[in-house]
């Protein structure tokens, strides 16, 4: 059975600036036991999707079922089978970690004794036992996120919604949180995860759906997507701007149209068909042409690459239009 089925979800917001179509006919399926990564930039509709599936928002169009229950008509049954861990850690910072867990456990209808037992169990699993009696205000960002996730698990939900679980965390806390999530997945949890980072979707998800402007524009496993966007890239920064055209010629030899030049950064990016061998060939050719380099490397595709390939436009951040500025030169 599919844990989540969404068909043609539409959600529009009316703001002073006009009507914004946050979701524009979004379709989604998460099979039982799967981890689906919903990947997209800020404002793509990821959070709106999760909020609709978690019964916090009503869709304007389309329908969705979660654990077999309609999110609008049977909202209460949906809530009993989900756990939500949000982008902004929604725990009470004036309560202790333990008090938060007991409170949410009791609201998930556990008895007093069960709620306390469950709290102790989760504190142990999330390495928060030492901080259990401390007010959450004193927690680090990583501890807060772990507690937030633990709170989502108090009711032993069949399905877990994680909205950008690691945004804003330092790499160490992020890795710790990833471990915790992987642990859940091994125990058979079904997870819908939103993220802005391909790396995160790659690390956690069994399949990925790419969202842009409120619809799914691509789906597949991480490997399928990476193959679709050409896998790894070779990135070269030349020393002398005047050498850019010649360097481009050399790099583009096998890349066809998919060659991006950033004049300001004196950088050229091409797909690394052939990986290291191709990189070595390029280096030999550049040396033969006496083109001096400041930097060279093989790098993994970023969200920008996915977006450039799939949509022809860069992944914009929130609508201010200021992309990372590293992918405009040769893009169509």
């Amino acid at each position: 059975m599919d844990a989540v089925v969404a068909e043609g979800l539409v959600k529009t917001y009316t703001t002073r600036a006009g009507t914004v179509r946050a979701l524009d006919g979004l379709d989604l399926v998460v099979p039982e036991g799967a981890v689906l990564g919903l990947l997209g930039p800020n404002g793509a509709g990821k959070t709106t999707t999760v909020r609709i599936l978690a019964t916090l928002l009503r869709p304007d169009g389309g329908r969705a079922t979660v654990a077999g229950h309609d999110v609008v008509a049977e909202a209460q049954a949906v809530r009993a089978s989900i756990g939500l861990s949000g982008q902004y850690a929604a725990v009470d910072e004036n309560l202790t970690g333990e008090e938060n867990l007991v409170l949410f456990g009791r609201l998930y209808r556990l008895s007093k004794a069960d709620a306390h037992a469950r709290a102790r169990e989760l504190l142990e699993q999330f390495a928060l036992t030492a901080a259990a009696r401390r007010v959450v205000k004193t927690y680090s960002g990583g501890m807060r996120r772990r507690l937030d996730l633990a709170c989502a698990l108090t009711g032993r939900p069949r399905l877990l919604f994680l909205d950008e679980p690691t945004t804003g965390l330092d790499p160490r806390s992020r890795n710790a949180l990833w471990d915790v999530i992987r642990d859940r997945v091994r125990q058979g949890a079904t997870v819908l995860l939103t993220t802005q980072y391909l790396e995160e979707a790659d690390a956690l998800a069994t399949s990925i759906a790419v969202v842009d402007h409120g619809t799914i524009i691509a789906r597949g496993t991480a490997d399928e997507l990476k193959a679709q966007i050409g896998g790894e890239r070779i990135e070269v920064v030349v020393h002398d701007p005047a050498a850019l055209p010649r360097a481009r010629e050399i790099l583009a030899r096998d890349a066809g149209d998919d060659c991006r030049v950033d004049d300001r950064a004196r950088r050229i990016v091409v797909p690394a068909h052939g990986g290291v061998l191709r990189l070595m060939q390029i280096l030999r050719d550049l040396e033969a042409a006496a083109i001096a380099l400041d930097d060279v490397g093989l790098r993994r595709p970023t969200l920008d690459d996915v977006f450039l390939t799939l949509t022809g436009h860069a992944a914009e951040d929130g609508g201010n239009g200021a992309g990372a500025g590293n992918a405009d030169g040769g893009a169509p």
Partner: protein
Amino acid sequence: MSGLRRALSDGLLVAGRNLRRVPRIPELAIFAIIQSVIFVLLFAFVFGGAIPLPGGGSYREFLLPGIFVQTVFFACVTTAIGMTDDVNKGLIDRFRSLPMARSALLSGRALSDLVYNAGILIVLMVSGLAVGWRVHTGVLEFLAGAGLMLLVTFAMSWIGVWIGMNVPTVEVANQVGFMFIFPLTFVSNIFVPPETLPSWLQPVAEWNPASVLTAALRQLWGNPNPYVADGLPAEHPVLITVAWTVVLLAVFAPLGVRRFRALSR
């Protein structure tokens, strides 16, 4: 568990959570009390001498019931701030994703603020006793007055729920709350006998819910209770207070619930 019992037990859980926060941020309660005590001292010792009561009587005994009423009305600020804070910090979203009774978030808030304000009122009454305020009637009358205060506090909390769900930040909640409270408590019989007000303001001051509650308390407790003229508020302040409570609840409770429902739009 039946729907009503679930709503009740969830409401108690939410109220318990709200109350647990009080000692964690003691400044809130402490400053609420200090503020009221400052009002008592200011009016009792600074302005008190300049405000003669028609018919005589102690100004402090006249003032104290009004100070209690002012605190009752501040309940709407407390509630608005708590509500806005929960909405902004994402806690309301967390609660809404749980299989709990939705009503518990609003009723739990109103209930915990009722207990919180009752606590503050007890501290104020004790300090009132220290500056010379007394209940001159009996225990029953005292309890009737206390019950009346709690009733109005409850109505005020619902106004606070509505304000809290309509403002973007805690700071705005605070300002809007005070904007609401100050005219009500100053154009009233709390600090001055209403006859000292301009004649066109006098009917407002007479019918103002803050005035009728104050008058009801003064009447019940035998504290000085000057009126400009006869009339319904003068003759039946208790009844008018109850009527006001019913009207305020009938208006603001549905408004608050409607705003709450609109969160899912």
